[in-house]
Structures are given as C-alpha cells and as structure tokens.
C-alpha cells in the first residue's frame, strides 16, 4: 500500500509535479477561490467603477446646473416656462441636461440598489424593492429623455402662440 500524498492547499500541483488545469484556467487564482461566478462576470466591479467615474462628471454637470439656474442673474425668480424653453432651444443645454439625467439616475439607482442589498434581508423583499426601483428609474429616464427631445420651445395651439414661449422674432 503506497503512502497517501498530502498536497499543500492551492498548490495546484498534481502528484506528477505538473501544474493542474484547475489553477491555470482562471489565471493566478484557483477557480474555487474566485469571488465572481462566471454568470455574474465582474458586474459589481464595473458598478463600483461607474459610481466613481459618473460621480466626477456629475459634480461638473450639477454644479454648473445650480450656478446657471440659481446663482446667476435674478436666480430662482427667473425660472419659468420661458427660461426652460430658452435653455432647451440650445443643443448645448439639451445635451448637458440629457447627460445629467442619465448619469444622475443611473448613479442614484445604483446607490439605492446597494442600500436595498444591504438592508433588505429577505430574498423576496429585495426582489420586489428592486423591481419597483428599476421600474421607477426606467419611467423617469424615458420620460425625461422624451421631454428634452420632443419639447417645443414655441408652442402654438390652433395657430396662436401660447404665452410664455420662446419664439423666434417674426
């Protein structure tokens, strides 16, 4: 009876001294110790990275948004339909607000998703909270995007310009 060979853990060495398939397949870490299953990929790492990258961009977008809308000129008194119409008549502000809408909603949704994962202990509770969250996010992003792009800064009803619009001089 031959002696049982006891291998060092994670050595990846077969009894013949060759490196086994088990270790080399996944790179430097044996598959049983890898944190992400093959089905999830590295989604959580990408979400972590997204929070940091979108966060930096959002600081520029939102600080600009607050400065232009609240601090310049007569501030909040200036905000009415004509103010919004004047901004969205310009593709620069359309793109600015579109980027802000998408990045802020995805950043916020991902943050709330993390909070749900942290505090909701039951699987079914987590599932339902996330269904509600993702549904709300989809509605807000689609609605906001449609409003930015289908908006008419100079609304005309029955041939009459509505008051407060941002109409080019006739």
């Amino acid at each position: 009876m031959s002696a049982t060979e006891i291998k060092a853990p994670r050595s990846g060495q077969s009894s013949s001294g060759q490196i086994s398939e088990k270790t080399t397949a996944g790179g430097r870490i044996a598959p049983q110790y890898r944190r992400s299953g093959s089905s999830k990929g590295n989604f959580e790492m990408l979400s972590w990275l997204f929070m940091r990258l979108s966060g930096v961009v959002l600081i520029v977008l939102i600080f600009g948004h607050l400065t232009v809308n609240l601090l310049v000129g007569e501030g909040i008194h200036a905000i009415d339909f004509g103010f919004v119409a004047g901004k969205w008549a310009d593709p620069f502000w359309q793109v600015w607000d579109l980027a802000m809408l998408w990045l802020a909603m995805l950043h916020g949704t991902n943050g709330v998703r993390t909070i749900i994962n942290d505090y909701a202990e039951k699987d079914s509770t987590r599932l339902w909270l996330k269904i509600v969250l993702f549904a709300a996010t989809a509605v807000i992003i689609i609605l906001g995007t449609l409003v930015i792009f289908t908006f008419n800064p100079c609304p005309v009803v029955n041939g009459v310009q509505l008051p407060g619009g941002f109409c080019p001089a006739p």
Partner: protein
Amino acid sequence: MPTKPAGTLYRGREGQWSWVGHRITGVVIFFFLLVHVLDTSLVRVSPEAYTAVIGAYKNPLMALGETGLVAAIVFHAFNGLRIIAVDFWKKGAKYQRQMLWTVLALWLVVMVGFSIRHLSLALGGH
C-alpha cells in the same frame, strides 16, 4: 478581557459617520431627482402648468428646502471626491480623517456663499 471594543479606524468615528452621511444625502438627492424630473416634465404639458407649479415653489419654506438640498448635494459631491481619493490614492486611507475635515471645511465655505446668494434672492422679494 476588554470591556469594550478596542478602537478601530472605522467604527464610530469619522469613517463611519461620513459613510452614514453619504448614504442619507444620497437617498435624499435621489428622491428629489425623481420629483424634479416629473415637475420639469410639465413643460411638455403646457407653459401655464409648468409656471404654476414652479411658482408654488417660490416661497420662503421652499427656499430653505432648496438650501438644504444643495447642502446635501455639496456634501455628497465633496465626500465623493474623498472616497475616490481613499480608493485610488496610495495614502488615501491614511489621510481619510484629515480629508473629511477638509470636506467639511470646504462644504461650510460653499454653503455660506450659496446661502447668502440664494436666500437673499429667494427671500428678498422681487
């Protein structure tokens, strides 16, 4: 046997409270954002509907609310930069406490400036 947990860098100190603050401000901003997209979407309904709803915002109570919202945004923004520094800067974890106090100092400066400007505009009449 220690009678209480030995001090850690994280528990009950700057690291933990900034994390709590980041979560709370984040949730507040998120729910505001949902409402803000909805109210702005009224421009698609009619000029009157939008201007009427925005007009309802223009009172002293909402001016204070806006100031609180901006306070939450500015903290979340500056503390977010601190988190990025903790994650990506080699000495970030070592200086995380000092960075939090820097965040709070900058937050105070920005908020004093913002409050003076916004509240004098919003409350000062027209």
